[in-house]
């Protein structure tokens, strides 16, 4: 197991260049040039919110689950996304999710189904009880590329336990927001909307599975599934459903959006598995974003120590 201890000389995530400053860097440079030396000498003046306010998550305890591999850049994580609700191009989400979610509406999450303590929670109330952690996970997309992302969040299990699932709760079904006004990609039937994903109960309760509300010390951006999303690091990326509005305990295996689109290619489990080919891509290797050469894909994306036992005795070629 990899245990990452923060060295005294390590730069905490909270000290990297602030996102808004970064995003507006060209404008910032222009302003600096026009304003002349005065502003250039004191670059923090006149930039709106102070840096601290945007760095929401600071001094979080490092997680034993974190990898010490080199993190993918913030720019890549926030501009190369599959989030078909905002378009099918990789850059579409970063272009069309800039105002998402609409700040004038309160984000609510409904937790229902086979449980004793269902309810509808406003975002703030939902996340308040939990201690945020930073977890640096590998993320492997079914298309053959991967990233290393410093997520901020808490274990899904803690949230699910509060809902008190009953004995009929065999699976957990997750649903993304359906709102074509905010999500222009939903105007076209590329997939069956709303996006639905699911986990078996034991997968959902696994300590690796988390609800993420931020990355790189900042709140999630629209393109990464704001305000809250699932992260299941041993499964292909599409299982980690974004912008969740409903969590439902069910007895039957949920039919996920990709299973409905193409059941032969996308199974319910979709565990990262270099030995099970996707009909269109070999899954043996992957290109880590930012790297030139490809690397070997690891079984369960390298998380076998934590999750392999969930599937003992199962034929993973059949249950792909």
């Amino acid at each position: 197991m990899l245990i990452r201890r923060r060295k005294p000389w390590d730069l905490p995530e909270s000290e990297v260049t602030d996102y808004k400053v970064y995003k507006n860097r060209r404008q910032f440079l222009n302003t600096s040039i026009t304003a002349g030396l005065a502003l250039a000498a004191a670059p923090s003046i006149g930039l709106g919110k102070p840096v601290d306010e945007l760095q929401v998550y600071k001094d979080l305890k490092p997680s034993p689950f974190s990898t010490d591999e080199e993190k993918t850049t913030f720019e890549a994580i926030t501009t190369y996304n599959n989030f078909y609700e905002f378009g099918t191009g990789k850059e579409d989400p970063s272009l069309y999710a800039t105002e998402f979610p609409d700040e004038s509406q309160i984000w609510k999450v409904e937790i229902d189904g086979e449980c004793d303590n269902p309810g509808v929670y406003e975002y703030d109330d939902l996340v308040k009880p939990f201690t945020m952690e930073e977890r640096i996970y590998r993320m492997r997309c079914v298309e053959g590329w991967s990233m290393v992302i410093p997520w901020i969040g808490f274990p899904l299990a803690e949230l699910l336990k509060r809902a008190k699932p009953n004995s009929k709760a065999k699976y957990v079904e997750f649903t993304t927001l359906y709102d074509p006004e905010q999500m222009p990609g939903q105007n076209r039937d590329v997939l069956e909307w709303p996006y639905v994903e699911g986990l078996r109960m034991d997968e959902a309760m696994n300590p690796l599975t988390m609800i993420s509300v931020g990355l790189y010390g900042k709140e999630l951006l629209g393109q990464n599934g704001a305000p809250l999303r699932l992260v299941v690091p041993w499964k292909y990326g599409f299982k980690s459903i974004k912008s969740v509005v409903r969590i439902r305990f069910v007895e039957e295996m949920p039919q996920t959006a990709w299973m409905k689109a193409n059941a032969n290619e996308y199974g319910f489990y979709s565990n990262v598995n270099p030995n099970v080919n996707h009909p269109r891509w070999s899954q043996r290797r992957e290109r880590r974003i930012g790297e030139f050469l490809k690397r070997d894909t690891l079984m369960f994306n390298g998380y076998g120590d934590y999750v392999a036992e969930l599937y003992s005795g199962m034929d993973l070629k059949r249950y792909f």
Partner: protein
Amino acid sequence: MVTTLLSSIQAWTSNAISNDNKGSFIRLSHLKVLVFLICLYPLFYMTWGFFTHQLGANPIEAVTRDSGLWGLRFLLITLCVTPLRWLTGINQLVRFRRMLGLFAFFYATVHMLLYLGLDQFFNWYEIWLDIIKRPFITVGFINFIALLPLVFTSTNKMVKRLGGRRWKKLHKLTYFVAAAACIHFLMLIKADIREPVIYIIILTGLLGVRLLHHLRQKKLSAQ
């Protein structure tokens, strides 16, 4: 009205574009150089974008995809030449067809080399597995092979050697290659098939025009 316009364009171009007339407005050789440079533009912007980091987070994927797209686009542009000739009567257009076709092959080759080199790193075993196991790679590979006889018979010498009729017959293979390229594109898409469908519609139009022309010629000769 349209016919008068077309015939006047025709008259103008046949005077304006000329091989040897010193007094003509534009010389064919100059125009060919211009078209050649325009055809190189996609290569230029891909290379420039790649080395100046403007192709997003996954530049290798971007150049692989774009080179393939330009291969397909040049195939369709090449297939536009003949219908445009019928439409405008500017027979000089045919002089650009070989160059456009060879550019389709050029971009298809870049596409293929990027796949072989930067996707598979010339691991021939993996490449072989890909060709036999993944239908869209199979189609792409067959497609590339099918382009080769077209390229090898593209010189004036080969046209003469084959004879115009046989050469023409062989080059009908272009229709197959264009259709297979569209299918190759369609097959690699996960869910949003809009873009390949646009190319399929364009190709259907280009082939449809040929069918109509063929039927009309038949009717005319029957009369």
